[in-house]
């Protein structure tokens, strides 16, 4: 029996145990970004209503326990067009495709939509969701510390990077749902663009960077 091998293993295991258990762990607990966020109720021609509690209640019925905080506003413009603006703060995100499907929606993935937000190029995932008479065009993007992470793998790599260096990050998923119809999708896209344009003008620079990404 080669005894030295055992000692090599013992030293390795002991080092592993010390590194694992002797130091404290960093946890994602949310950054309080949403609590500090001051979303305006009136945005140009849009009038909003905070429906966070209502949406939060419906989300908690599913298994979305990964969400630290959320904010949800329903905005109506002066023509009566409605949209839902949701911001989630979380260390990890489900694909909205999954949430919609499990809620009984049929979904169709559309080409990404590009928005211009005060000189920023914002590329969002776009879904057409349908359940009976309810039809939405949903635009969503994930943004970690002011950087848009478009692909799932990109999101995972960023999360890994931040967890490695224990940076206190702001991980958000932003979603805009506009009521639509199959033949009125272009109109709904214009409504979303219009809303983003109006909303971006009312936010502070820092909020803009966290929600729509850095220029």
């Amino acid at each position: 029996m080669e005894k030295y091998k055992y000692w090599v293993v013992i030293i390795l295991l002991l080092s592993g145990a010390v590194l694992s258990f002797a130091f404290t762990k960093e946890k994602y607990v949310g950054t309080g970004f949403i609590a500090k966020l001051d979303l305006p109720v009136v945005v140009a021609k849009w009038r909003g209503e905070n429906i966070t509690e209502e949406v939060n209640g419906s989300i908690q019925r599913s298994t979305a326990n990964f969400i630290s905080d959320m904010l949800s506003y329903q905005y109506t413009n002066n023509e009566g067009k409605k949209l839902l603006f949701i911001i989630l703060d979380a260390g990890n995100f489900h694909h909205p495709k999954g949430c919609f499907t499990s809620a009984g929606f049929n979904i169709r993935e559309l080409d990404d939509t590009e928005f211009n937000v005060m000189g920023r190029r914002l590329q969002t995932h776009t879904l057409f969701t349908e359940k009976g008479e309810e039809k939405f065009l949903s635009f969503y993007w994930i943004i970690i510390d002011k950087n848009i992470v478009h692909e799932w793998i990109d999101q995972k790599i960023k999360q890994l990077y931040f967890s490695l260096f224990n940076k206190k990050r702001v991980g958000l998923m932003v979603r805009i749902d506009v009521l639509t119809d199959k033949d009125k999708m272009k109109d709904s896209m214009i409504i979303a663009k219009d809303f983003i344009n109006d909303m971006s003008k009312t936010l502070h620079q820092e909020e803009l960077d966290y929600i729509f990404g850095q220029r």
Partner: protein
Amino acid sequence: MVNYVVWSLVIIMYAPLFYQLYLFQWDKIDYTHAYFILPLSLWLVWRKRKDIKELAQQTHPGRHIGSLIILFTGLIMFVFGWKQEYMFISTLSLVPLLFGLVTYLYGRNMLKPLFFPILYLLLLVPVPLGVLDSITLPMRHGTSVVAEKILVLLNYPIKREGLLLTIGYSEIFMGPPCSGFRSLITMFSLMLTYVYIGSGGFSKKIILTSCIAPFALFGNLIRVVSLCLITFYFGEKVGQGFFHNFSGIVIFVITISGLIGVDSFLDRKLQ
């Protein structure tokens, strides 16, 4: 003596992880199979105790640098996974750590009796939420579509809206248990052991293993269809009460009897 120190250290390192898995994962619907993975793996090792004892007494000269690298990789995975709370990575680390440890200390021959029991521990690894979603959602959707088609063929008044089935005046939502993933992973874990300890050559074992998924999925489909029928005839209370919990047995019966049937068929054919 030093041998015991090594294995005690492994136990000390992984005990907190297993405690965490027990706290956070084992009550989750897609992880209930994990209760019996470690005991079964240990039992499989215990079965081979004579071979292991003999192999352990042999000397294994050589550098085994590859084994040390595998062991080191497993250790790094554990430390990283534990520190960053990636249970997926820290649990997965058990496999390279044990492979590295066994081959480094006792030589590659030791892998012969231990290869399967160590690899079997992969089933302990909790599937990440994102991956689980992308597996179970299509499964739930597929099950609801096929169940609807079967019941339409049988002339039942059924309508499907996403994952919501409406039969008569009752609604059945295809929740996570209806995906079939739980039964698939549970049956897969159990039947792998059955196939491993069973008689027969490699090809027979491959055939049997590849039959596990179709039988488990078929069992789940029968379960969902019978749940719909029970709900239709006796109401939601009966369908989603006792029968809902009891119906899991249907999958077990179908999968186990199906595999035993294929096993004896293959035995007759190969004789």
